[in-house]
């Protein structure tokens, strides 16, 4: 009962001896015939024996200091008998990898659970983490970061000093409910566009100003961009794509290039939908600013109409655009207009808008 056939390596020579292992009360006895036919026996004291971590049914035990002697045994009954014979010594420690020795259903189950966990982490965990990281970022550092970005990029544009002055003046008349220093720069560019940098810098293309007809449209545009600044959307976006990249490269560390390319692209797609969410958020927060200032929400409707006509012809290609489809935004804004209460005609703001219109002529 306590005899097993094993292969024995003495650690000095690569010869494999077919040997018999006998389990004695406090030691193992290994005996074999060496090549000259002489019967040889080796004694392993119990406390010096260690078990190799293994994934198959080949059990390997080692003994002594380097170079170690080893025995290999293929008998499935061995672990059970060892437990019975030596209850005080643990030969086979329980390991997480033991589940590979279970059936395939378990492996598939675990695999699915892991996939789900990964999916949840990627789609929900990461954006949340990005938000948390962004909200802990000190405001002063953010302003500094935004200013550095601004310094680097503004050189590529032609700044309109006159328009910049009157537009900043216009913005001061609106309470944006933010502690960020809002600084607007108007640049000469035909495109109907504007963007916000972290920390309060907003760049407006004069192309979009020329297409506007009312002060509410400009106010809507600024409210939208200020919301990006106030809710730290750029930072969240940066953290999100950085996190996504780290997550995927960690995961796919040793998977070949094809998958990495696929994964990179899907990460980009995920970022796009994420920034669409941010755009929608900026719209709704911008409308909240309008309500607080009792401005006419129709400004948003008009702004989106302007955008739609300016970008109309390429709209169908913009499935992957960072902004939600203008038509959808327009619809959402029209809904909001229906529900809005008392609006006030702001004379002071109107004067400032006229100043901008004069400057545009």
């Amino acid at each position, binding site marked *: 009962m306590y005899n097993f056939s094993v292969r024995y390596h003495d*650690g000095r020579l690569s010869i494999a001896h077919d040997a018999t292992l006998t389990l004695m009360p406090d030691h193992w006895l290994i005996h074999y015939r060496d090549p000259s036919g002489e019967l040889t026996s080796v004694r392993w004291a119990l406390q010096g024996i260690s078990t190799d971590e*293994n994934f198959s049914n080949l059990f390997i035990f080692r003994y002594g200091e380097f170079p170690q002697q080893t025995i*290999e045994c293929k008998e499935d009954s061995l672990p059970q008998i060892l437990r019975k014979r030596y209850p005080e010594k643990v030969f086979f420690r329980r390991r997480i990898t033991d589940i590979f020795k279970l059936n395939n259903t378990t492996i598939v189950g675990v695999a699915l659970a892991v996939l789900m*966990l990964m999916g949840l982490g990627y789609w929900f965990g990461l954006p949340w983490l990005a938000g948390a990281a962004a909200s802990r970022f000190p405001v002063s550092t953010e302003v500094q970061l935004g200013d550095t970005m601004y310094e680097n990029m503004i050189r590529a544009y032609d700044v309109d000093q006159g328009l910049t002055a009157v537009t900043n003046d216009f913005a001061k008349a609106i309470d944006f409910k933010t502690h960020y220093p809002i600084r607007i720069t108007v640049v000469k560019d035909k495109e109907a566009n504007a963007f916000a940098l972290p920390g309060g810098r907003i760049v407006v293309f004069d192309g979009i100003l020329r297409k506007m007809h009312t002060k509410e449209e400009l106010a809507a545009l600024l409210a939208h961009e200020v919301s990006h600044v106030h809710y730290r959307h750029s930072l969240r976006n940066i953290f999100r794509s950085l996190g996504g990249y780290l997550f995927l490269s960690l*995961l796919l560390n040793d*998977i070949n290039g094809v998958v990495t390319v*696929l994964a990179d692209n899907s990460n980009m797609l995920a970022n796009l939908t994420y920034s669409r969410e941010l755009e929608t958020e900026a719209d709704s927060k911008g409308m909240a600013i309008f309500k607080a200032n009792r401005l006419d929400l129709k400004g948003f409707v008009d702004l989106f109409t302007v955008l739609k006509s300016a970008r109309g012809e390429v709209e169908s290609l913009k499935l992957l655009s960072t902004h939600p489809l203008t038509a959808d935004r327009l619809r959402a804004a029209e809904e909001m207009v229906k529900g809005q209460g008392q609006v006030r005609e702001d004379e002071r703001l109107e004067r400032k808008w006229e100043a901008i219109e004069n400057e545009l002529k």
Partner: protein
Amino acid sequence: MEQQETRQLTFHGEGAKLFGIYIVNILLTIVTFGLYYPWARAALLKYMYEESELEGSRFTFHGTGKEMFLGFIKAIGIFLVLYGILFGAAATQKPTIMLLGFAVFYIGLLLLIPIAIHGALRYRASRSSWRGIHFGYRGDRKELLNTFVIGSIITLVTFGIYGAWLVIELRKYIFKNLRFGNITFSYEGEGGAFFWLNIKGYFLTLLTFGIYGFWWVKDLFNYYVNNIRMYQGETRLAFRSTATAGGYFKLLIVNVLIVVLSLGLATPWAIVRTMQFVFSNIHIDGPLDVDAIIQTEADYTDATGEDLADMIDIGIV
């Protein structure tokens, strides 16, 4: 005619088992925020070795997660310092300091490669065994570093042409210092032949719109394998490859299909196929006495090089 004695390695790994190991590794690596990674690597290497067989005996990888974790931490520390220098220099916005930072960073990375290769070879070889006999690497770090740095500079000056000679020189150095017990190795390749092989492969691949690529890869593999020699005392043994372009084509096409169609999930099956392809195409010719290899190498447990090499993505085995 005398029957030529030849031996082969066989790979017994199964896709399903490898898949299970990958899944658990990924899961634990995620929930421990990456700290489990060294153990994951150790488990993977153990499995791959355990399923590799020569003359009825399996190979063993003795490395442990703990050893590799220490190396992992050191390697991360080294990278943090390097990136710290880079970003620190970039933050000053001063051109001279930025230039200096870049220089330190890239020279550091360049020096790190041979250091990683050396450390990884020493660790990996020492932790690999067959029938209780350990492998070993006796190279000198300084010598490898010199060869690598001087070779890189010449490669740069010759617009990459010397690269072929450098690769061969590194292979020669590594194999010269590789031990398996008292068995020694050598690499018989030549820079010139290797260079023309690559030139021919490159232009024919361009001319045939990539089709010749399979022959090129086959040639590179064969050039690598066919030039390995093994010596047991006075006996010389030669490695021989039987890989064909058709075989490569089949391996690659099916693997790409497996990986892409399963969105990467079936990658372990592709890995098993690759291992089987490599092993089944390498023959060791000559009268090897598998019972007479004598233990000669010492223990080496510093895994920093192994982890560095892993991070820079240098494949050794």
